[in-house]
């Protein structure tokens, strides 16, 4: 299973990965329409964390033994047939256990704060949108999981 690996050495903290992720998951390919000010925005599956002079884009590692799947009370967090760790929005109860147990901090409360939100590895794309958007190649797709 390939995963998205960030490289903190060259992350410039621009957040273009977040924007690309939000556009990809907005159901609309037009960046203006997807992120027009004043409209609710989708929750990005990758989030840039900044501390001191370091920045790092953090997204789900789609672990071999994902703690979030083990911890999920309702079975909403599951592994898809393609091997990705994904949330079934209909089954998620919003208990946030997955948010607590993820060792990478890669699961977030969704924008409506009812169901969990995380990286789905952009099904239907050759490479995830965030990786393609990174202007400094600080995000790479690497074979093998965390």
């Amino acid at each position, binding site marked *: 299973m390939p995963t998205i690996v960030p490289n903190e050495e060259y992350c*410039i903290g621009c957040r273009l990965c977040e924007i690309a992720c939000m556009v990809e998951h907005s159901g609309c390919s037009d960046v*203006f329409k997807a992120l027009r000010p004043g409209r609710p925005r989708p929750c990005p599956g990758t989030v840039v964390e900044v501390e001191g002079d370091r920045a790092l884009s953090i997204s789900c590692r789609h672990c071999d033994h994902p703690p979030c799947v083990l911890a999920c009370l309702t079975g909403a967090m599951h592994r898809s047939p393609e091997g990705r760790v994904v949330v079934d929005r209909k089954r998620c109860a919003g208990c946030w256990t997955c948010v607590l147990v993820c060792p990478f901090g890669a699961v977030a409360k969704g924008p409506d704060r009812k169901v969990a939100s995380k990286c789905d590895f952009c099904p239907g794309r050759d490479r995830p949108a965030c990786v393609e958007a990174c202007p400094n190649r600080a995000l790479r797709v690497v074979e093998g999981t965390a």
Partner: protein
Amino acid sequence: MHSDPATGQTIKSYLPPRFRVSRDDARCIRCQVCENQCSFSAQRYDQEEDRMVAVDRSCVGCHRCEALCPTGAICIEPSPSTYRENANWTAREIRNLNRQAETGGVLLSGMGNDRPYPIYWDHLLLDASQVTNPAIDPLREPMELRTYLGRRPDALEVAPDGSLLTRLEPQLALEIPLMFSALSYGAINLNVCRALAMAATACGTYYNTGEGGLHESLYCYSPNTIVQVASGRFGVHLDYLEAAAAIEIKIGQGAKPGVGGHLPGEKVNEAISSTRMIPLGTDALSPAPQHDIYSIEDLRLLIYALKEATRYIKPVSVKIAAVHNCAAIASGIARAGADIIAIDGFRGGTGAAPTMIRDNVGIPIEFALAAVDSRLREEGIRNQVSLVVGGGLRSSADVVKAIALGADACYLATAALIALGCTLCQQCPTGRCGWGIATNDPVLARRINPELAAERLANLLQGWAMEIREMLGGMGINAIESLRGNRLRLRAIGLTDRELDILGVLPAGQ
């Protein structure tokens, strides 16, 4: 706003903004990428109003925000503000006078001379074959760009069995007649140094350490490294000399002939201090002259000291700025035992130079090259040295013209930095380079990912090499060696007889 260090009193700046940050609000998605990328704080998000605000006065015109804006909402324009027209007191002069009245210091600039002096490359035209000697298609037939730099023997002795009896002096082999010229670690950060080293290695050519020493992590690229010995002798030790493919003695630099260098102490971090072998946080001052070189005889001593130290296996280059009597100086350098002479024209770049020096000292590289090549030929010593020229070469066409004028290879640095994003905003001395090039700020330096940057540089060299092959093919030439110093393949347009004489080129139509 400038404050007086003695009194703490501030002086209000009268300078109007130079640029206007124009933003198409209908396209702005308030993502704040412009804000987090602007290293001069010219972009700001106003939370109360939920909109981006530009501080035009702080904008230096580096275009970083424009390049990264995901919606193309930003356009950096020249400020429409103008002074009353005056041919003598131009806006440039008024700005300079104001800056000086506010700071009381020497005006500093980055990059090369930007004044509208003639660019002689644009007055030279290349030849092409028609009917009598056929053009060559470089995609179908071999085309040789390999270049050797170093001293050539006066004659070759060959044994009856075909083996060479003459001992050849050390040579640098270049797959393409292009090298990266000196950019010192400190003036640029380690990521850029690494990218240059990686690209030079990938393309079979050389990069030059400049006078900043060689960082320990770059020794693995030593087969493609030219190390510099400059007036400050920063980072010069035996391992440094041993590591190099060639050694360059820097006498002068095109951007600031006759002037030394000054890397401010704030830029001298731990890695730079250990590489340059100077205390942490101290100013790195390169004296204007090399204090042990006051004559050609002194230069000879240093050339041979370096050759002796490295067992005569590496060519030694001497770099000078293009100045009025460079032909005579070059003759002296050749006779002093240099294997390569590098000449840097007055458009050559720098991390910091006094503006008045940058804009008013030196001569165009086209004249310097023609004069040096002619002089060395007249004296019958052209074979003793290779000529490398640089200083504002913009394209493969400039390179081909330089080689036809007499150069063996070309140095490029500004073109390489532009390939990495540089937009010539000339803010290098501030250390706030928005593109992460001329800065040691760890946050900004991160903007250069060496792997990606090396790819951009290698692409540039590869593209130029292909264009050079095309131009050679058009002239019916299948080896760059056949074009070297072949000024008959050049014609000039719009030049005076005197200029034609110096360049040794016929006018178009003749």
